[in-house]
């Protein structure tokens, strides 16, 4: 019979191997799902994972999109991973992303139509601050009142969505927009635009910020005292207490940082690819980033790779929607299944599976 023996330490090999395995298994499961929907599974998988990068017809358009979509995912997931490592569950990054975009956009719109070099940097600060403050709410609710940060941060997503709708209809509405909801286009206003920096790559300021975040998180986790404290708290909160970790400060740091990074992601999105605050500005990056963080094993380099992969599923999903009329929800299912498969495979990381003859105990 099969029996499980808990490993004294998580297996490093399986830590790296399981995400790859999970992607392969999810592709097979996804193929079955697509087949059940009456699509050719091989064509569907190829359209999602191969064509955006290598098809001569689409790659020219799709390739730059990869960095555009990966940047917000990586930025947000890096922030989330700090908290997840320490057992602090911020699942409201979507709300922090929205609030960052709104605050940054509001600063830019306040200066319109003035042209000056300092407007964009101010907006970046505003975006980070907006996300930071929105992330601080669950942090303070947790440290002051011990309210569960999971539920508070999630509720704040719905609240942020309502604020986004209210400002697109009210405070930030474009006065020259013929009454349509939505702000002025920030990408077309030179002082607030976040353009492609290197032609043909899709790399805008958000992509730079995402790379910077990966490097910073790597240094923080491997070299800095705070990174050590995060890891200790996650592995054993009791030991962390003895080691003198101030758990309240850690909660505020983790939620605040992930909020600020999500806010930045929102700001770079609203000034670049999206262009404006509308009633449907957010597209779920904040939730997908949770999958990115886990698939990347909460490791900065892993998150970068996972971010690129999930960006690919977004782009490939759009392509499959266009080419094969595959519903966009199927990509959502696919992403969710990826997280599930990965969690299922964690058993290989934490347990040794051995065959053993049945014997009397």
């Amino acid at each position, binding site marked *: 019979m099969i029996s499980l023996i808990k490993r004294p330490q998580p297996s490093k090999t399986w830590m790296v191997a399981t995400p790859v395995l999970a992607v392969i298994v999810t592709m097979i499961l996804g193929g079955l799902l697509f087949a059940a929907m009456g699509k050719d599974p091989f064509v569907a998988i190829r359209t999602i994972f191969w064509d955006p990068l290598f098809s001569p017809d689409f790659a020219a358009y799709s390739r730059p999109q990869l960095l555009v979509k990966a940047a917000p995912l990586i930025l947000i997931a890096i922030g989330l991973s700090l908290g997840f490592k320490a057992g602090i*569950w911020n699942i409201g990054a979507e709300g922090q992303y929205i609030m960052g975009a709104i605050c940054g956009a509001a600063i830019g719109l306040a200066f319109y139509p003035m042209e000056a070099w300092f407007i964009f940097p101010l907006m970046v600060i505003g975006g980070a601050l907006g996300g930071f403050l929105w992330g601080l709410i669950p942090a303070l*609710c947790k440290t002051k009142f011990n309210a569960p940060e999971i539920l508070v941060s999630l509720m704040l997503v719905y609240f942020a969505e309502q604020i986004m709708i209210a400002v697109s209809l009210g405070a930030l509405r474009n006065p020259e927009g013929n009454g349509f909801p939505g702000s002025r286009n920030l990408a077309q206003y030179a002082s607030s635009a976040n353009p492609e920096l290197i032609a043909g790559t899709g790399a805008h300021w958000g992509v730079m910020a995402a790379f910077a975040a990966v490097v910073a998180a790597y240094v923080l986790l491997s070299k800095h005292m705070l990174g050590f404290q995060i890891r200790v708290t996650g592995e054993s909160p009791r030991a962390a207490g003895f080691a003198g970790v101030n758990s309240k400060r850690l909660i505020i740091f983790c939620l605040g940082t992930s909020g600020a990074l999500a806010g930045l992601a929102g700001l770079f999105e609203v000034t670049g690819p999206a262009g404006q605050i509308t009633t449907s500005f957010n597209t779920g990056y904040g939730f997908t980033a949770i999958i990115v963080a886990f698939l990347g094993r909460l490791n900065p380099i892993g998150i970068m790779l996972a971010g690129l992969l999930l960006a690919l599923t977004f782009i490939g999903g759009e392509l499959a929607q266009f080419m094969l009329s595959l519903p966009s929800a199927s990509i959502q299912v696919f992403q969710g299944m990826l997280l599930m498969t990965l969690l299922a495979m964690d058993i290989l990381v934490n347990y040794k599976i051995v065959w053993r003859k049945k014997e009397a105990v």
Partner: protein
Amino acid sequence: MDLGSISLVAFFASLMVASTPILLAALGEMVTERAGVLNLGVEGMMIIGAICGFAIAIESGSAAAGFLGAAAGGALLSMLFAILTQFLYATQVPSGLALTLVGVGLASLIGQPYVGESPPLMGKLHIPVFESIPFFGPVMFQHDPIVYLSLILAVLVGVFLKYTRGGLILRAVGENHDAAHALGYKVRLVRVMAIGFGGAMAGLGGAYISLIRVPQWTDGITGGIGWIALAIVVFASWKPERVVFGAYLFGGLTALQLNLQAANIPLLFVLPYLVMLAGVIYFVIAVAVGSWKKTLDVKPTLKTFAQFIGVGLVLLLIGIATNYASSLDLLMLSSAPFVATIVVLVVISARSKGASNGPAMLGKIFQAH
């Protein structure tokens, strides 16, 4: 603005309808959590219930069959979570999140052919004799069967947990799984059943939204009610009677929101007085109960009372200062349930002074040796 157009009978009747899906989902999740399992996938199971119920009701022509299908759909989805957490020892928080992500996507996928269709309606079940009581009759006894079912289930769950052997075993598993295992109880089996019950109840709650409350299918129809149900379990300190109270409180808020919107009355015009009224009621009850049990502590009671009045006055001032601006009011109305959830979570967590009174094994992994 027309205060007179709000009929109290219609308001309280709509309150019961608005509360039912929250109550069903929260009851199920409470049982799951009492067995020591934290399933954050309520929103996903609800929306799967909503679409399964909707689709089966349309295909079979019977709303009752729809509800059965919804319970089965919710329970089936919850088994994914059970496999992950009970057999593969996966962490419960991300597993629940994954369940929600899969559920929401899958529901949208299944639901595509059903957009714009109308489901068969479920007949109302008037309770004889009681339905003719003035005021209370139309408010409480002229509803669809599911409203009564949800309340009966609340009583049954309460009795089960408190007075039956099965309930005792379930609680033992939730409080100390190693001890329960040592006594020979099947920890894993109990938990799988509790997860399944939670899934079925969430499915019923979801179907109530798509078949009776709305009744239509749109993407994301549950709109966060699953998460509110999770918060209500915390608010209720894992006690069935308080789950009913919490669900009806939030149902009341939703009903108030809809009624005010229909009558075109700004929320800030009513809310300050409601908050202050709640303060007065709290004060009266606290003083009465306190002097009855001879445990009256005047200072904290007065402090809480003053906080209520203070919040009411601040809201009143905001209303006057903004002259009841319609954009602000729309924002407040639409975000009220979520903001109220946060407030309620903060208040209840501050009250319990950090010592959570939840099941001791909540969220912990059990592996038999």
